[in-house]
């Protein structure tokens, strides 16, 4: 019996190693991946499809945003397919969870890159993950269009890297000058930021904005992504006597707000990064009152431009979409616009070339990529009042 088991084990291991060799062979990217034609229903009617891979943090600290990516990209694909597809192609999606971990994200990107059916990748959520994948985009010749990466150094890392989110080199200084300085009228503040590529870069730009606006920095503290207890950082910043706290983060913002209010520190909180998140209202309750958030869009059910998206998103995800989800929808729109403009065969390379020239008005406003693969977006100022978000300043504020 033992011999039989041993023989079975050896056979299994041999098969696994053979399969591994096979995988290695297929790891060499095809010289040119093209859009697929396949028989979907077995009736012999060929259906031309273009498949996009989505990388999103479906679990972990940023799960709210990752699940928003998943839902929003699905809605975009359903909308486009319902309207007849693009250039005769139907769109398909595959979504995988990176948990906002750079290594996992790169593994998923490589898997997508080695799959000839995948014509472009939408994701990831964090700039750190997107930057980790940037060399792979070049190596495999596969576009990565991030809905949310706002680290200014990301999109310029490769000609295959794009982002439809604003850039922190403009947003962070604007937040310092226009939100903290002008809108709130503060002359000093303290800052907490996430110790990641995104957080460090955003903090640097924010501090330069404080400097040029003449706002005094009383404290500047970082923390790691898996932090759960912020009491020591809060005590440190509270001891500076600051009456304004700026949080540069996304997923940890509700926890920080609760711990700030729980510590008895009655300060004005501003947060750059989370957008108009329902999770903040749910998790913080009254603690979120007065919170100020600069964000590029505020999506509501009664806004005629976005109400359809809002309803579909709510049906899928049981929460209101943030700007991050809108950007995920917009990433699919950008790829669709690029494919529309391609004459001839749709390939990974032709999508990359076409993306550079897209210019359209979509749900997230006008989208046109600059030379670095990024976009410019204006910001709103919203504030929590009576348990909901209120737009305090519209686009074009200073």
């Amino acid at each position, binding site marked *: 019996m033992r011999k039989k088991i041993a023989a079975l084990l050896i056979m299994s291991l041999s098969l696994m190693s053979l399969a591994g060799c096979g995988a290695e062979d297929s790891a060499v990217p095809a010289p040119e991946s093209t859009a697929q034609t396949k028989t979907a229903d077995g009736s012999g009617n060929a259906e031309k499809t273009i498949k996009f891979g989505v990388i999103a943090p479906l*679990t972990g600290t940023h799960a709210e945003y990752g699940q928003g990516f998943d839902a929003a990209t699905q809605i975009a694909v359903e909308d486009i397919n319902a309207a007849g597809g693009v250039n005769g192609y139907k769109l398909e999606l595959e979504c995988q969870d990176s948990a906002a971990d750079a290594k996992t994200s790169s593994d998923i990107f490589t898997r997508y890159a080695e799959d000839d059916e995948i014509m472009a990748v939408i994701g990831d959520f964090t700039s750190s993950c997107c930057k980790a994948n940037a060399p792979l985009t070049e190596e495999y010749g596969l576009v990565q269009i991030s809905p949310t990466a706002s680290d200014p150094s990301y999109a310029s890392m490769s000609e295959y890297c794009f982002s439809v989110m604003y850039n922190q080199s403009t947003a962070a200084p604007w937040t310092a000058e226009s939100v903290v300085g002008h809108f709130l009228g503060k002359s000093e503040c303290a800052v907490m930021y996430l110790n990641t590529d995104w957080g460090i870069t955003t903090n640097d730009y924010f501090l330069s904005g404080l400097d040029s606006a003449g706002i005094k920095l009383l404290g500047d503290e970082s923390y790691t992504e898996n932090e759960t207890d912020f009491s020591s950082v809060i005590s440190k910043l509270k001891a500076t006597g600051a009456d304004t706290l700026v949080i540069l983060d996304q997923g940890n913002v509700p926890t920080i707000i609760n711990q700030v209010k729980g510590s008895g520190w009655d300060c004005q909180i501003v947060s750059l990064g989370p957008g108009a998140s329902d999770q903040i209202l749910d998790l913080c309750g009254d603690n979120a009152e007065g919170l100020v958030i600069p964000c590029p869009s505020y999506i509501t059910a009664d806004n005629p431009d976005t109400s359809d998206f809002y309803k579909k998103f709510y049906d899928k995800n049981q929460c209101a979409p943030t700007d991050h989800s809108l950007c995920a929808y917009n990433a699919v729109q950008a790829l669709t616009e690029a494919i529309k403009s391609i004459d001839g065969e749709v390939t990974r390379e032709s999508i990359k070339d076409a993306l550079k020239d897209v210019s359209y008005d979509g749900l997230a406003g006008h989208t046109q990529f600059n030379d670095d693969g990024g976009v410019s977006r204006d910001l709103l100022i919203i504030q929590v009042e009576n348990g909901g978000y209120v737009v305090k300043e519209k686009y074009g504020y200073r």
Partner: protein
Amino acid sequence: MDGYLISQIVNGLCLGLIYALIALGVAVIIGIVGFATFTQGEIVMIGAYSSYYVFLWSGNNLIYGMIASFMITWIIGMILYKVCYAKFFDSPEYISLICTIGFSMLLKNLAQIIFGAEKKPMLNIIENKIYHLGIIELSRVQLMVFITVIVMVIILSLLFTRTSWGLKLKAVSQNREAAALVGINVDKTAMIGNCIGCAIAGAAGTLIGIYYQSAYATMGATLSMKAFTSATLGGLTSVPLAALGGILIGVTENIGIAFSSASFRDIFSFGFLIIMLIFKPTGFGRKRGARA
């Protein structure tokens, strides 16, 4: 000593008490079952989710929440014992250790599938009242955690030293064969010991959920490692010394952060552990594995 440093020490004490709460369960399990466990963080998470749903149903009734988390994690403890320990008493220790790591991953992923990946709010379970003792500020939840740790340490110490049931648990932890020879049902006793450790972690989960005002699938990941570190400092099996280890790690972390950055938190805690073990390999205990 200025007010700022005192407030950081108080923060460290409160965080240390959270570590201590989980470390108590770790020490009980290692002491009685005889195997290390890396599932305590996930048991904490299950405890927090159990009370979250009971709070929704009962209108934030703390007693119901505590009972639910205690009972559900007791049942999880029974399953954990059967899966990770029962079959491996005669196998190398690392087998059950790896098994507990696998079990923790399974619980975490199942929780994400069943409860969703988003955080669940646990707001206003206890009124956020702040007490001022001179320059020291303490919230009501922090006081509750403090009292719970003290009460747990006393109850567990009395249980292990003053009751016949505790003596059975102690006998099993010291020599399984000898305990069996005097008529103790070793398997059942070890399983009860494991369930006690898990149920303590479950109750801790309720308090941690209330303290951080949320429950989510990954909430136990870091806490589990810190709890194990605390138990290691306490000599692995001693309940009061594991609590002391937790408190010292919390205070060390926060004093370190007071003079540097929160980004270095783990450097202080694990650095403290390494230095401590270099000079005193048994931790605070006289002998590693001995029950204090």
